[in-house]
């Protein structure tokens, strides 16, 4: 699933940003001594969340505000991508991989003062897997057969089939534990168990969280965190320069990075995300149902130029649907080297010596619009005449993602370990391969990490050989931040802006 939700472009973004920058800049600039004792931080984000309930929406921005800060799942993912304890202090897994026994933190409390116990966990999991559930990742909970609560501190989850990713999925924002009393109002007034609690939401501008004094774990260093939403690239740069925001995460104005790198007031980190950016290809549609045509396109795309042109070099090339930083990665970028002559030969072999006409439907993010323009030019070199059709998010989700009405598209798939979508016959690639499905089922039966990685390797090779989609690059996680700020995540193993470990140096 893509990671962006629509938001109308702020037409006066630049002006507003500059004005705000002037106002805030002078206020802060006048008191340099105060900067030493600051206990608040302003984090910039490109998109505003549509609401604040991660269990009821696919928009990444919801999790980027709330994950680990406001809500906690049973397990959670840390900065390095490991699954670590959250609401569950410890857990055990039965031999057959079907029974998970979680022991909860005894002091955990919701922000409204009520105790968080096994009944809340059962409520949350049952709500997420119910037939009328609006959870964006309902599939994460599909393997659950029953949730039992032998005592307030223990939850026993029984699965109907082994699920190798169960603990990982339970660590996602979609699996946040919520209370029955507040679940229906979390969208506007979120109530979780995390180290920060909701203060206020100024629509179109910011969400403010404050430290939760009753948190039963280690208390964060910050008293207050504001997430500011600035969609305009020039306004983002201006806000950073003026000190209006202290850090900007998933910064995508890559052309401005050299400037920030040369300025000692800022630190720029370029980390990894889970965003495999691909040229989505409708495998059911002619001529893309011919593997030779898909391989020809793979040979026609110059990834190096693409990464330079779109990301200004800040990203890794991929040869299949798997991120290079994960264990189990197999480097397949050499399988289809950039070779326009070979591409033309393959097209001729497929009966298309004069190329063909096709349409590329592009969602709004800059990497897609810019990348699409470059890919179209590269395909034109080998005779594939691409008509570009830019689309808004709603139309893209409706037509391309749900309706599967497209030839080509370009999008970053940002869910972690989402290679399994290639086993779903209803997915918008229209890719069907029984061997892939068999590997997927074997993965679900396998707990041993080495064996799992080998299976992931086989899946990657299969997808690359079939050239299912154009495998392009990994979206980088670029953070531009005040050099005095410590503890921001460099990588993005899960959709989150975890600020629980952030402090001023």
């Amino acid at each position: 699933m893509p990671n962006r939700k629509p938001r109308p472009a702020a037409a006066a973004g630049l002006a507003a940003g500059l004005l705000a920058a002037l106002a805030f800049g002078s206020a802060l600039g006048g008191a340099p001594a105060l900067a030493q004792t600051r206990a608040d931080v302003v984090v910039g984000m490109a998109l505003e969340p549509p609401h604040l309930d991660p269990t009821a929406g696919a928009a990444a921005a919801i999790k980027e505000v709330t994950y680990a800060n406001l809500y906690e799942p049973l397990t959670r993912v840390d900065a390095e991508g490991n699954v670590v304890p959250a609401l569950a202090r410890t857990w055990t897994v039965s031999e057959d991989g079907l029974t998970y026994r979680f022991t909860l933190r005894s002091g955990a409390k919701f922000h409204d003062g009520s105790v968080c116990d096994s009944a809340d966990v059962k409520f949350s999991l049952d709500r997420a897997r119910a037939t009328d559930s609006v959870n964006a990742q309902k599939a994460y909970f599909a393997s659950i057969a029953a949730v039992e609560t032998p005592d307030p501190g223990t939850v026993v989850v029984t699965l109907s089939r082994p699920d190798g990713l169960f603990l990982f999925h339970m660590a996602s924002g979609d699996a946040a534990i919520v209370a029955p009393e507040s679940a229906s109002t979390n969208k506007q007034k979120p109530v979780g168990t995390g180290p920060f609690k909701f203060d206020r939401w100024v629509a179109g501008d910011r969400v403010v969280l404050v430290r939760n004094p009753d948190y039963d774990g280690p208390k964060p260093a910050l008293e207050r965190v504001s997430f500011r939403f600035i969609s305009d690239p020039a306004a983002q740069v201006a806000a950073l320069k003026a000190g209006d925001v202290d850090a900007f995460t998933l910064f995508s104005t890559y052309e401005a990075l050299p400037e920030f790198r040369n300025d000692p007031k800022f630190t720029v980190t370029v980390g990894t995300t889970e965003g495999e950016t691909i040229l989505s290809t409708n495998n059911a549609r002619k001529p893309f149902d011919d593997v030779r045509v898909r391989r020809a396109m793979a040979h026609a795309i110059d990834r190096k130029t693409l990464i330079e042109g779109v990301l200004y070099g800040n990203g890794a090339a991929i040869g299949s649907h798997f991120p290079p930083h994960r264990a189990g990665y197999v480097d397949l970028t050499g399988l289809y080297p950039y070779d326009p002559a070979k591409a033309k030969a393959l097209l001729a072999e497929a009966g298309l010596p004069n190329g063909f006409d096709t349409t590329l439907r592009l969602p709004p993010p800059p990497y897609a619009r810019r990348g699409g323009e470059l890919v179209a030019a590269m395909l034109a070199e080998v005779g594939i005449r691409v008509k570009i059709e830019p689309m808004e998010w709603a139309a893209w989700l409706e037509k391309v993602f749900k309706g599967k009405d497209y030839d080509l598209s370009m999008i970053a798939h940002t869910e972690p370990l989402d290679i399994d979508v290639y086993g779903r016959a209803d997915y918008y690639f229209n890719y069907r391969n029984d061997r892939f499905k068999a590997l997927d089922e074997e993965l679900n039966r396998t707990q041993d990490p080495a064996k799992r990685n080998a299976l992931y390797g086989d899946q990657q090779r299969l997808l690359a050989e079939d050239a299912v989609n154009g495998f392009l690059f990994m979206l980088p996680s670029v953070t531009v931040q005040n050099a005095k700020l410590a503890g921001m995540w460099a990588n993005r193993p899960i959709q989150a802006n975890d600020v629980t470990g952030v402090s001023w140096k």
Partner: protein
Amino acid sequence: MRRLPLSLWLGLTLVALLLAVALLSLVWTPFPADKIRVVARLRPPGAEHWLGTDHFGRDVLSMIMVGARNSLSIGAMAVGLGLVFGVPLGLAAAALGRWGDEILARLGDLVFAFPAVLSAILLTAVLGAGAVNVVLALGLFNAAVLARVTRGAAQAVWRREFVRAALALGREPLSVTLVHVLPNVAGIVTVQATVLFAVAIVNEAALSYLGLGIQPPSPSWGKMLGDAQTHLFTAPLQAVFPGLAIALSVLGLTLLGDGLRDWLDPRHRTSGIL
């Protein structure tokens, strides 16, 4: 013959220049306008690339030249559509009077209820982005404007004595419209069309800036401005050249329209200075 007003001269010169650049781009540009060379991106103006290169290393001058052609042809088609539909409708409204007039006027109100850019955005949202739909949307708006202008001018002509005389002599309304009314509204329609041409160029640029207009690889001044926006801090010149191209074209067409009005309007027949 009366001396031409200065504004007309200036307008004619700018528009002729624009036209010349657009025509030249058919046979020659310094580089192919869609030639991408990422390694040569964001070059400042220099000997090789006179106006520098954009974020994909394309030659800005070549893009501006082909962009002129795109702007002019979209503007011409949008105004042409407006003339073909708007003028006959306006003439008919004035000739029919009463019910026919009322219906056409209300239809016009319907179009005017939405600003041109907004209705263009709506249309491209339904039909998809692209040059054809931009022409359709702007053409619709132009038709409404021209119908209204033609109707107003034609109504005034219908009240004149020579028209009444022609009717008294037994001429059919259709023939009166063609022989007497149309020639007398031609001037004001020409002036209005020139101004609408300028408006169409700005609106096309606005739509392309939003990504709804001309699609790559075909260059558009509006898209060039949109692309330049993220480089405002690093390469501010990127925004200057397409911005200048839009401003000069609109200035030229507006001056041309202004000058034409002065020249054609007998009340403005002055001593010859301006």
